[in-house]
């Protein structure tokens, strides 16, 4: 499970993430929603130990993400928003490199790499240099990489951006399957449709602050509108927040 307690990140004068506390249970699919620049990516980067929080802390499976980073990485898979890859490596070689980094055995390597490549439809492109991949293919390859060491927790930043509708559907099915296996999934998105269809619970972040958290049903009761779509909830919560700020 993932837990953050008043995690805060400042960049100079600007506070990108302001005291966000949330908990994601095991086997849950948690959607992290928010408009552009709300602090989604910053939160995820702090969870991955890429950025050090200025205040507060975060744990994954009771391991502190900063001080016990190496152990955390053994159980976490990560897909960034812009998955830059090594240009002159072939798809297969890229995964092999990752496997070596995760100390996978030869059998595991030979077993999982073709399996993952075919699941995401990259089998034909596996001998191609990644520099020639389309954005969607890069994303898929990075996702293969994130799943390579069979992580307990999967953290994804905008996983579906740049994917075609078919791939999005495949992705959704796959994520549901992973969650059924008991894996914890934390994904950020601004595509509300995806969140509504996929996530058990969502957290809405705006200007660095968590303005709402819970299942779609709870959020609906919060704003006292039983038929509201997630989009309406989202806009409502943000408006409420903006009015509070003004006042």
């Amino acid at each position: 499970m993932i837990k953050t307690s008043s995690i805060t990140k400042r960049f100079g004068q600007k506070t990108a993430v302001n005291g966000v506390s949330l908990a994601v249970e095991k086997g849950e699919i948690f959607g992290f929603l928010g408009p552009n620049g709300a602090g989604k990516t910053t939160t995820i980067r702090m969870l991955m130990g890429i950025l050090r929080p200025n205040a507060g802390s975060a744990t994954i499976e009771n391991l502190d993400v900063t001080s016990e980073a190496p152990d955390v990485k053994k159980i976490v898979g990560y897909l960034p928003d812009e998955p830059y890859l090594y240009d002159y490596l072939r798809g297969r070689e890229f995964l092999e490199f990752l496997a070596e980094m995760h100390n996978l055995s030869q059998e595991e390597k030979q077993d999982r790499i073709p399996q993952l490549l075919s699941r995401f439809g990259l089998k034909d492109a596996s001998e191609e240099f990644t520099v020639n991949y389309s954005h969607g293919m890069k994303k898929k390859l990075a996702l293969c990489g994130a799943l390579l060491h069979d992580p307990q927790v999967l953290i994804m930043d905008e996983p579906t951006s740049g994917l075609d509708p078919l791939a999005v559907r495949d992705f959704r099915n796959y994520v549901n399957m992973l969650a059924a296996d008991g894996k914890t999934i934390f994904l950020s998105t601004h595509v509300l449709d995806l969140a509504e269809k996929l996530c058990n619970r969502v957290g809405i972040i705006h200007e660095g602050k968590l303005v709402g958290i819970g299942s779609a049903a709870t959020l609906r009761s919060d704003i006292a509108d039983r038929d509201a779509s997630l989009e309406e909830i989202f806009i409502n919560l943000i408006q409420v927040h903006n009015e509070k700020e003004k006042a």
Partner: protein
Amino acid sequence: MNRRFIKAIIKLRWTIMLNYLRHGRKSKKRSFIQSPFFLFLMALIYFVALSLFFGLIFKRYPIDSLMPMASVVLTIVVVGLILFHIAMQEFAQSFTRNSGDTEFLLCQPLTAKDFFTGKLLEYSFADFASWVVVLAFFVALTWIASLSVLGFLLALFGAFLTVIFINALLLLVEQILTRLLKPAALRNIRILLPILAGAGLVVLFIRFQDMFSKGNIGNLPTISTDLLSISPPGILVGVFLNLGSKSYLGMLANLGGAILGTSLFLTFSLFLVEWFGRSGWRIVDSHLVAPGRTVESIRIANTGMLKGFVKKDLLMYLRDLKLLFKAFGMPIAFIVLYLLTNKNKKLFENVSEQSAYTALLIFGCMSYIAAFCCVRCLDPERRAIWLLYTFPVNMKSILWAKAKLWAIILASFGLVAYLGSAFAFRWPPLATVGNGVFLVAGVFLVAVSGVGISALASDPTSKKSTTINSSAAIVFMLIASSYALVFLSEDWWSKLVGSFLFAGLTLACFQAGSWRFQHILDPEYRRPTKISIGDSLGAIAIFFFVQVLSSIVLAAISPDGATGTHYALSYAVSGVVSSTIVVLYYKKRTRSSFRVFAGIGKTRLKNVGLGICWGGISAAFALLYLFVLLQMGLKEIFLQHNVVQVGVSAEAAKWWVILAVTVIAPIVEEILFRGFALSALKEYWPRGSTSSIVNALLFAVVHPAVSTIPVFILGLIVCRLYQRTRNLTAPIFTHATHNTVMVLSGLLLPKVMW
């Protein structure tokens, strides 16, 4: 200063030293070698040794052969120790500050199984072994150039056996000790190492004495060969050679020496680790007390990770045509240029006919290729940095493991370059074993600094695409070439210049690298705005480099020109260029005006007067010192004083030289040494007196040995003046007055006395 204060200081130092000796790693206080007291002691030893050298030895042996030798050895030892001390302190601090990681240090436990299954390289301890392997390689391969094919084969074989021998010996000792002794008792075993090392030193001393009595000391390569012959690889080579000639006694002596030499080497490296890494004994403990204990993160960082990175990087480099072109284009251009100049001998007669320069060129080109790859080592990770954060190792280990990997690759490139030049030119100093060993150590250091540059040039966390360019590799090549200059050139002045260049650039790169590493690990880290040791030495290095470069160009343009004019011109050019760079850099770095820092512009008449007065006093002391030398019957030494020499020489161009000495030198040297270096030293030793002593010492060692002591006094005076007036005016006038008086005495004295 009153007596109570001095007593308190002595008591404090004594307590620190005792605490350190009693509690070792437990003590949080600075260790002895890191204290200013140590530097003071070094200075004292330096001067005592210098006086003894001059007083006793010079009377017995012809001065010509001893003079360069003495100054080179002493200056390199002192400068080297100080620089090494500072560099390591800075380096170790920057790497251990955050988490106390020690994986870059030498020793890690090793088990018998690992040894025989070839998993040696998995452990950092094996770094030590691989150092020996590289060392042995050099010894063996340099043998080719000096001996025969048979000698080479024997040497190669011997070197490899030595590596195995050392490891087996260590392992055996370790296994026996852990079985026989309790851990607590085991720790006391380390006392044996210094004893054995002491015995090694005695052996060394006897050999040196032997050389002294034969009067054969003027040759640096001979000494380094001899030094090497008590080191492990050299001994095994000796054992095999003795075996060939059936001299069994000699073989036994060699084996005995092997054990002594190994202890010496081990003790030295362990002490270095202890003193500079501040965690040495912990490593020794884990090495001796708990063999077989694995350190998970280190293991991963060193095996799968390195294999993965080697494969990945090589694949990527080989496939990127643009990169290949960049890597080889420049050296090819260099070689074409060289061939052209070589053909047109009229123009470049002085340059191209010196095989030293040719060797330098080749060394430079080869190291460029290696440097290019090395410099790029962190670049591919720049945009894909997120990926590194997904690996189950901490970021620092990954970066460091990668840097280390490329450093080793570069060291092997250095080998190729070295062999190439040795083969191609059969230039005698190249073909000596000692130089080869020095070279490998240097190349490794160069490589590490190259990684520093690479880290500097590529900022993985930055979103701006800071592209790696060839300029980083060129800086790198400069470092490599300066190192080659130290060991390829025959005159001691070039050696000194080279060592300064090398030390300065290396340190600057270390510093830049550690800043960048800090920045990668913590994006909000901002580099300090204050001037550091690396900056000041870098500035001095630039000065020397421009001087060397301009003198080469001058020699090429007008081969018949007077050397005095050349000297003065190159001095002036380098002074102007280096001062400009320094001022610009300073402005950029501290975002404040140079005037504030140097105190220029607040010239007061009082300071001018003060400067002239003190200049007179220091010149009087210098003259007194020279008179004492004369009274001792050392007229030749007196005449070697370079300023005096100006007066004595009949050269027409001497007025140029006088101009350089009396006007340009004071300004440039004061800006570099007082304005820059002293400010930096104060960061380390805030007390004025300590930083002054260190500064004066540095200032003294870059001057000819005969004027070391007067210049040291001059340095102390100007440091004091600078600290009192906060203005460079007084120091500049002091320096100028001092030099003018010395030149005048050089002009007048010979006429009066002879």
